[in-house]
């Protein structure tokens, strides 16, 4: 695939996925009310229409075909008004729509992974069609003008004509064009009308039958079966029209029929131009075709949003980082001292102005990468809805703080963890039956609260259920059975016992269900969250419910760091990992049998890691009194780093190491990346979890 195609594919996937998200949101919302609003019907119609068009353009036939059938369905619904459906049908419609959405999604996923699409969509398509028939049948107590020849049979047809069957009566007509459309294109009446319109635009004058095809959807059937007729007052017009017809899409065949003459047109051109159903061309004409109330694509709300390639944003961030650094280089240039006082003041004035602007620029550039978390949250609605049906539990999902903004990369990586936790809460957290809940004195309807809040540099996402909670003893027993306990059972605190569920291979559900309980649950969640620098914790009261919280940094590319020196090197330690820094004396150090150093702090003993030793850096600071200890912690471990000195705190832009150095796997030795300091020098950023692994584990 060449680049242009790939770019298109990107755009296609982006667009289709966001349309499906929109659809999902709408369906979940509407299902709660149990009804579609007419706006939503229009919107679904529009979404399906767009998906159909773009899928056809990209030649993803199955996708186009599903979308097409749903479009037809919604065309009907839109036309009849949603109120014509009885509640039973509506319910069925919701299920059908959710399933359609899923099947569209699964196809899109295949496109994403470069797999072949399912070619056989007929069964699903016919299901949609059946539903359409069902609801149209239900509505057929209305005056049914859908007799096959509703329009075609008006008036007596001159019986001398054979091929055309019943010609409509038209006194002035000298000849007719009898046109058949492609099979199965849907909305035949409107397509026919469209063709007619476009011909009229070309100043061809004629009458057409059935005359009410644009307003009466019942004519659809007759057009499919009998074709439709154009009646011309003179042969010249007919010839002109015939030419025009050739340029129209969706025409299977047409036939020119002369009226008064007993002998019909010699060999009416039995249309060769069965216009190839260029589905790519479809979107454009169809838009014209349904102008009445379908909001045309591109509702005004959307117009102030543009989608930008993420790499461009990253580049922008890089350059902004550059500017900030260069600015501080310029303003701290030593030659400035040689300026005389006035010029120096002037210079500094401008420099301050510049700094303010660059700060603004930096904030702005950073905010570009921030997206609201609502996209992820909305998806949970759907999951809760599906599980509610499958598990037969009545649960309400409450979302709080959906508009909290988080870095795009983080949003992408926390979706799966959140989904998993919501599933867990649904499956294991909430009681199995309403009776159980009533017996426990709770509202029969369970509740899961999904919330997101900001602190200055962190986002806290919590998933709380009011279900049965967890029993630490049961967890311990289970863990023991699985053989994953690392110390005697009775030494586990409650917190530690709860933490067991995040170990690999732990799953408390006896049997595997469709949704959770594969034993790859919480440990995967934990790993995913930690990969973006986050921490998972949980609290649970038996009988009260369980709350999971995820704490993640707002953004990955920028963080608060503490600069420390070791010899001539400057290291940056993420502030999030630092608990305390303090000085000690040599006699406070405790040694174990191997001579490893430890220190006591607030009732606990913590190992000391001398950075200069681990990284073999020459330094004069060897005595504990001369240097400083930094107490760092990760979600699991806590230890102290011995460094020469603290320099200060700074916000730093994290840069990865050049690819050239990949083979040294510095990441496994506590080196997470680097950053460029204000003076242009480079500082190495320490990755505390891997530093712990490298220095203190495996001894």
């Amino acid at each position, binding site marked *: 695939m060449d680049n242009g195609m790939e770019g298109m594919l990107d755009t296609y996937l982006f667009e289709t996925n966001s349309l499906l998200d929109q659809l999902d949101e709408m369906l979940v919302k509407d299902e709660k009310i149990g009804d579609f609003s007419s706006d939503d019907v229009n919107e679904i119609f529009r979404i399906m229409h767009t998906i159909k068009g773009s899928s056809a353009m990209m030649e993803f036939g199955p996708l186009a075909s599903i979308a097409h059938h749903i479009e037809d369905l919604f065309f009907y619904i839109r036309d009849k008004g949603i109120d014509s459906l009885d509640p039973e049908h509506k319910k069925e419609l919701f299920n059908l729509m959710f399933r359609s959405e899923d099947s569209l999604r699964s196809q899109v996923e295949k496109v994403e992974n470069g797999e072949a699409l399912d070619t056989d969509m007929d069964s699903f398509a016919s299901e949609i069609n059946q539903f359409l028939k069902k609801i149209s049948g239900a509505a057929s107590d209305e005056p049914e003008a859908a007799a096959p020849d509703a329009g075609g049979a008006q008036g007596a047809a001159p019986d001398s004509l054979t091929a055309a069957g019943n010609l409509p009566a038209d006194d002035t007509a000298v000849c007719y064009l009898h046109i058949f459309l492609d099979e199965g294109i849907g909305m035949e009446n409107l397509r026919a009308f469209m063709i007619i319109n476009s011909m009229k635009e070309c100043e061809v004058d004629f009458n057409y039958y059935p005359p009410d095809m644009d307003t009466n959807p019942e004519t659809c059937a007759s057009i499919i079966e009998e074709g439709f007729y154009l009646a011309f007052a003179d042969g010249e017009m007919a010839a002109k029209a015939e030419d025009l017809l050739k340029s129209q899409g969706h025409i299977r065949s047409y036939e020119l029929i002369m009226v008064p003459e007993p002998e019909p047109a010699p060999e009416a051109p039995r249309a060769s131009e069965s216009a190839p159903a260029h589905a790519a061309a479809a979107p454009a004409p169809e838009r014209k075709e349904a102008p009445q109330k379908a909001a045309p694509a591109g509702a005004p709300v959307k117009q102030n949003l543009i989608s930008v390639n993420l790499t461009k944003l990253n580049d922008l961030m890089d350059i902004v980082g550059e500017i900030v650094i260069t600015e501080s280089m310029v303003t701290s240039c030593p030659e400035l001292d040689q300026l005389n006082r006035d010029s120096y003041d002037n210079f500094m004035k401008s420099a301050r102005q510049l700094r303010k602007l660059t700060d603004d620029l930096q904030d702005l550039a950073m905010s570009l990468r921030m997206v609201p978390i609502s996209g992820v949250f909305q998806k949970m609605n759907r999951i809760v809805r599906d599980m509610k049906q499958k598990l037969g539990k009545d649960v309400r999902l409450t979302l709080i703080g959906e508009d909290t903004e988080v870095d795009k990369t983080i949003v992408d990586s926390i979706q799966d963890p959140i989904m998993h936790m919501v599933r867990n809460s649904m499956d294991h957290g909430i009681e199995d039956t309403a009776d159980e809940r009533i017996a426990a004195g709770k509202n029969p309807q369970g509740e899961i609260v999904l919330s997101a809040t900001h602190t200055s540099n962190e986002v806290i996402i919590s998933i709380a259920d009011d279900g049965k909670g967890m029993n630490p003893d049961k967890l311990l027993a289970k863990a023991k059975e699985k053989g994953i306990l690392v110390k005697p059972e009775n030494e586990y605190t409650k917190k530690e016992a709860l933490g067991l569920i995040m170990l690999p291979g732990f799953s408390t559900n006896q049997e595997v269900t469709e949704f959770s309980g594969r034993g790859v649950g919480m440990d995967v969640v934990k790993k995913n969250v930690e990969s973006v620098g986050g921490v998972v914790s949980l609290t649970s009261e038996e009988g009260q419910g369980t709350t999971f919280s995820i704490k993640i940094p707002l953004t990955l590319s920028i963080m608060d760091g503490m600069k420390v020196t070791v010899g001539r090197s400057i290291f940056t330690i993420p502030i999030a990992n630092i608990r305390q820094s303090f000085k000690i004396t040599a006699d406070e150090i405790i040694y174990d049998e191997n001579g490893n150093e430890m220190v006591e702090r607030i009732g606990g003993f913590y190992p000391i890691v001398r950075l200069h030793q*681990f990284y*073999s850096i020459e330094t004069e600071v060897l005595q504990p009194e001369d240097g400083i200890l930094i107490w760092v912690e990760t979600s699991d471990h806590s230890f102290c780093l011995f460094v020469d000195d603290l320099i200060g705190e700074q916000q730093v832009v994290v840069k990865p190491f*050049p690819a050239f150095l990949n*083979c*040294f796997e510095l990441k496994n030795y506590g080196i997470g990346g680097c950053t460029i300091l204000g003076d*242009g020098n480079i500082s190495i950023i320490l990755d505390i979890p891997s530093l712990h692994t490298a220095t203190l584990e495996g001894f």
Partner: protein
Amino acid sequence: MAEQTTLNEELLELPETDEATTVERCLTFKSGDLILYISTRHVIEIINNYSITNLPLVPPYIKGIINLRGQVLPVVDIQMRMGKSEAECGNETCIIVLDIDSVSLGIIVDSVRQVIDIDLKNVRPIPLKRQQKLLDGMVTMEDGSVFMSVDCQALAKAQY
């Protein structure tokens, strides 16, 4: 900040070399006792006046990383890479920034000489093949001096 001599602009003005000819424009430079050359295709720029940040836990021939206008670039001492002693820092010492199949790195050299045309037909393999860590050919110039070719692929692959 480092002063930079950008070679790119110069290179752009060069006449397009004919595909059929085997002449390649090469940058020659001095490293220790050797005169080496490398195709200008790989050369991005030459910088002097830099400050290198040392990296722990890497082999000594990797001197560290530098900040080249926001890009973090590893710097290799090619003398040490060839198994010799550390390059001495002199007046003309500079870093040649290379891009070898999108791996960017800088190499420390004693001095940069000039850009010359080298006919690849005249390049001979080095007889002591197995002992070469970083060089893959030699060529005798008209004045009798011998230039050695740097094996870019080997250079771009970091190893212990």
